[in-house]
């Protein structure tokens, strides 16, 4: 992705939450473990990471070990609280029923040797994390899909993304 100016956008909370469900880009901080990415790059409280992020996907694979799974450039990281139902239970991090989805479970170290790499990570927030983490993410520069913005933001689009500084209305 080339250099891009930062565009200031004002979004309603529902509009920002809709974006977060779909996925926003975090322009730096790859090459780390999931735990480091969550805590250092995104600035999420370690206790929240451990206790509330009960369902986490890396590239669509349920993650059981935040320290072994590594975030590579282009990765998609989705965050959720604990979910209902048997399917919700199976997706849960290290959950009792995790074996029921063993075919798609994240295998652990993946896609990087652990050295720092520059690149974009797509982050999605679902359910309670939308309410809990939207304000935290709004404080940092974000990449959002160009087609999600109306007006002048689209002029700053690079590779389909626009670097924005979000103000929540």
């Amino acid at each position, binding site marked *: 992705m080339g250099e891009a100016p930062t565009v200031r956008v004002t979004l309603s909370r529902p509009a920002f939450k809709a974006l977060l469900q779909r996925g926003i880009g975090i322009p730096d901080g790859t090459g780390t473990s999931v735990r480091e990415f969550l805590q250092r790059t995104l600035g999420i409280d370690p206790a929240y990471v451990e206790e509330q992020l009960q369902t986490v996907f890396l590239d669509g694979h349920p993650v059981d070990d935040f320290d072994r799974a590594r975030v590579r450039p282009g990765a998609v990281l989705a965050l959720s609280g604990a979910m209902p139902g048997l399917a919700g239970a199976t997706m849960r991090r290290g959950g009792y029923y995790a074996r029921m989805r063993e075919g798609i479970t994240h295998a652990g170290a993946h896609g990087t040797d652990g050295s720092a790499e520059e690149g974009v990570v797509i982050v999605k927030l679902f*359910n309670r994390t939308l309410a809990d983490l939207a304000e935290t993410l709004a404080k940092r520069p974000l990449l959002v899909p160009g087609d999600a913005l109306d007006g002048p933001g689209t002029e700053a689009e690079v590779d389909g993304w626009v670097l924005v500084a979000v103000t929540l209305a």
Partner: protein
Amino acid sequence: MDTILRIDVGAAGGPKATPTPVGDYAGLGGRGLTSAIVATEVPADAHPLGPENKLVIAPGLLSGTAASMSGRISVGCKSPLTGGIKEANAGGQAGQLLARLGYAAIVLEGARQGDDLYVVRISKDGVTITADPSVRRATNYQLMDKFLGEYDKTGAMIAIGTAGEMGYGNSTVSITDMEGRPTRHAGRGGVGAVMGSKGIKAILIDAKGAKSRKPADPEAFKAASKAWVEGLEKHPVTGEGLPAYGTNVLTNVINEAGGLPTRNFATGQFEGASKISGETQAELEVARGGSATHGCHRGCIIQCSGTFVNKDGRYVTKQPEYETVWAHGANCGIDDLDVIAELDRLDDDYGLDTIEMGATIAVAMEAGVAKFGDGQAAIELVREVGKGTPLGRILGSGTATTARVYGIEHAPCVKGQAMPAYDPRAVKGIGVTYATSPMGADHTAGYAVATNILKVGGDVDPLKAEGQAELSKNLQIATAAVDATGMCLFIAFAVLDQPDTFQALVDLLNAYYGWNLDAAGVAAYGSKILAFERDFNQRAGFTSADDRLPRYFKREPLAPHNVTFDVSDAELDSVFG
């Protein structure tokens, strides 16, 4: 709750109701009672719509008590959809009220005489049954309009829409909610058609003057009830996630996992998932003046439902559940919540199972009857089902039949019943339950109930791949036990995580009935129910060959993870082997 109300629909002069003692069925409730009666009294080779079949409607063991979440009601019979035994359960008001009136079950039995349709009225003063020509071809909401004045304050209605009256394999028995609307359904397996075959269109319950059931040990029951509520309220799923977003909170998560069946199970991710997610749905409901947090019966503290209103703020339907949003949404390529809500309303009105209907429409779309993503076409197809046109009757016969009619291999069914909203290639453990449940493909047959606490099968390592069969068996046993209590399955997470909450549930049963059940006793109870069901199915001609997923799930990889269902036949056979 020591009486079974037997209604002989073939009696001289019209259907006759006779209260009988529970007798040998004492100690059974909900699914335990429906399956015991069907397995004992219905010939396994009976035609589902013939005079030998029976429809059993049974509240749970704890229904009608002060225990929170105990309002589920079970409906059982030989299924017109699967040809095997069936139990489908629902929320709503009827379970609590029937139990308070002292009924362990209502059994509709015998050979219907003539083609009159009857309305049954039950109160503490007795039972009346009258022929009512005006209810013929009435939909569930039309029945509500006609009878709401009779049941809205202290009662409930159990009814069938046009689907049940026309004998469809896809037909529900509806149960009214707190507002008197027919939004809760014993949905799966065509139970509505069996009620229709008995000529009973509606059962109106008036519980005026009926009191909450009294436990054997009131103090112990009160203490257990307090611990039970505290356990449910403190858990993040039952106390926060479900109330805020409803069951549709699963759409984003299952989609991310690549397990959201999309366009008739062609792929595991839907590009429009965030447009129909529980998070988006809740925002929309609240913004329009509806509600994202509501219970389906009094005494529910989880409040996983809601109210969906249109752009003008007018009521459309209750908050569509995850299974409905998936079936009519992702599985049909539809990403419009207003269309999905309209389909949910039509399903409730005609008395159609949303899972089966959505799966059927998707098969029809694959066959070219309509295009994937065409919401208006989907609405028109459901209207055809409700009207009983020739095409509608095919679609109303279910997913498997529709696939046969159109020459489509991709019928995502087990024992003739359509799979729910989790692709078994991505979540293989659920696939094992789909394959081996006596009910046909059913996600609630092996729910995330506390097998770890029950210790059925012993301790397991959750991260080891082997043992899917053992885990599925244990889940099915535990779920059968919960289905007998009348408790909503959404208690499962709190019970799973919190041993004290599980113990509170056992304590509720012991305090109410004066029992001394322990975890092993609960497991034995569940096993007994499954034994009834599997025995019936074997006598009905089912073999291990029926405990299989369609072969294409083994052959066709599911994107994005490109996984197939590779659990061996031997392992499937070992579930109950």
